[in-house]
């Protein structure tokens, strides 16, 4: 077979076009959402959709005025940050012991932990709801934090475990020989060497907690509601207001998108589970 420069550059063009196409298809709903957020309600439901119009900020003002955006945003920040920090505090020691003092059962325990993620969350809804209700924790940030932490723990342990496994055990042993106690070992060796893993695990769980809607909707709606519940509130009780719904959604995802943008390198590194160095 002959591959002339022409045909290979032709292939390249096809590939480039295809890549852009896929990217645009994936990105389109988001783009549409962003555009709609700046329309009036009338413009929003126009068919065919308008692409040229005078943008307005009215929707954003109204969302804040009507449902106190900042209240929900604050709840989102608190629940996701606290659950992530808490999760790291629990997952790091667990991953440490699994990576550096494994037993015959370590692999089984890891599999079992991951298997809990395969169960649909609805399956646990009733018991958790009842527990929260009995404990008087319904619609509290505390309940959300606990549930977010628990549901992220398996992933956190897995990610940290695979990162820690990349650290040669002998380096930790060397530090012990040098007189490091557990805290010194963590502070001077494990933390600096495992920083990449801890950061990417933390980032991923922050995003997961921020985006979490199932438990947020079911356990906290008013006082403890996160941005996910804010968005949901625009779809049912007040009828479908596309423009406001879009504005609310945009406001809900904007912080985490900006955040994700700046940390994408860490995230990608983390998602390869430490396989690529």
């Amino acid at each position, binding site marked *: 077979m002959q591959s002339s420069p022409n045909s290979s550059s032709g292939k390249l063009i096809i590939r480039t076009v295809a890549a852009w196409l896929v990217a645009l298809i994936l990105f389109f709903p988001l783009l549409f959402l962003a555009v709609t957020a700046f329309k009036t309600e009338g413009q929003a439901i126009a068919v065919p959709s308008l692409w040229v119009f005078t943008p307005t900020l009215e929707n954003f003002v109204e969302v804040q005025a009507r449902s106190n955006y900042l209240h929900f945003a604050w709840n989102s920040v608190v629940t996701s940050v606290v659950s992530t920090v808490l999760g790291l505090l629990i997952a790091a020691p667990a991953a440490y012991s699994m990576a550096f003092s494994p037993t015959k059962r370590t692999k089984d325990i890891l599999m079992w932990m991951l298997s809990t993620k395969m169960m649909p969350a609805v399956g646990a809804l009733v018991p958790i709801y009842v527990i929260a209700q009995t404990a008087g924790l319904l619609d509290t940030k505390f309940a959300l934090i606990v549930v977010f932490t628990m549901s992220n723990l398996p992933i956190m342990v897995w990610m940290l475990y695979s990162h820690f496994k990349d650290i040669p055990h002998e380096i930790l042993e060397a530090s*012990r020989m*040098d007189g490091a106690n557990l805290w010194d070992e963590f502070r001077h060796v494990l933390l600096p060497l495992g920083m990449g893993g801890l950061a990417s695990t933390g980032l991923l769980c922050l995003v997961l907690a921020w985006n979490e809607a199932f438990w947020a909707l079911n356990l906290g709606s008013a006082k403890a509601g996160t941005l996910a519940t804010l968005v949901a509130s625009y779809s049912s009780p007040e009828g479908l207001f596309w423009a406001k719904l879009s504005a609310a959604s945009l406001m809900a995802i904007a912080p985490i998108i900006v955040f994700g943008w700046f940390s994408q390198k860490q995230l990608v590194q983390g998602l390869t589970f430490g396989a690529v160095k």
Partner: protein
Amino acid sequence: MAFLELKGVEKFYGKLRAIKGVNLAINKGEFIVFVGPSGCGKSTLLRMIAGLETINGGQLMLDGKDITHEPSSKRDLAMVFQSYALYPHMTVEENMSFALRLAKVAPEVIKEKVSKAAEKLNLTSYLERTPKALSGGQRQRVAIGRAIVRQPKVFLFDEPLSNLDAALRGQTRVEIAKLHRELGATTIYVTHDQVEAMTLADRVVVLRDGMIEQVGTPLELYDRPANRFVAQFIGMPQMNVLPVGMFPKAGNVYEVGIRPEHLTIVGANEGQLRGTIELIEALGNETLIHVNLGTAMIIVRQYERTRSQLGEQVGVQFDPAHLHRFDKEGKAILDGNKLAGAAA
């Protein structure tokens, strides 16, 4: 009194009894070398002393204190790992000063100790580099430097030279010997390499299957091995061991051993043994001649070039004073009946 003492220490990995009641007393300033075949438990025993493996039985005493269950960080021992195990995120200087910084030694003192050690190890111009930017030999020296700045009670080495090439290994071996003379520090050194064992050790500990076979100075082990295993483990090429049937029967002697250099090739009708030459290995400084005795093979080492030919019928001669005798269990018979040195 011994400085470091192992009293019947035991190690189990599940059901596997990896170390089987080892007793050993090490004096202050001694250079002890652990040798033995792969998997015999050298590293395990060393790591038990280091506190990196728990001790499941027996007692470990250091300087009169029971440290059996003391954590590594409190034992005040230094270890040089085969993989060097340098801290990759620290410079050479930080690597070497880490222990002192943890111990909250004054910065001026640290600086002085580190620069002194760096000078000794030719590392002065690398102090600002990270381990990634060093060659294998330099990393090795940093690992040694990290151990010596601390002036620990005991140095532990686990095959520290096995990742270096032959030339560098020889050179570093000499440096370690020199270092030990200068510092006079108690040292335990694990190796596969007989030359390292013979040249570095004050006393060699031969291990097999988690048990000590013999402890002694290198020449004691060479000249008076306690059993057949030690006799064949120490010395390259290994000692020839022949069934006693080839010699006049004497007492409970079961096998007879003789080192290759104690054998001489002689004319076909002379000497105590007869055979044909099967292989000649001319190494330049020595020649190894493999002789087939019919029921067994022996190796003869000679320092002159040989005129013998492959397939030639020869006699092999030895001085009976050089014979080692072993009983059925392989134990050496040290004062047994003198064997008449005639072939059967």
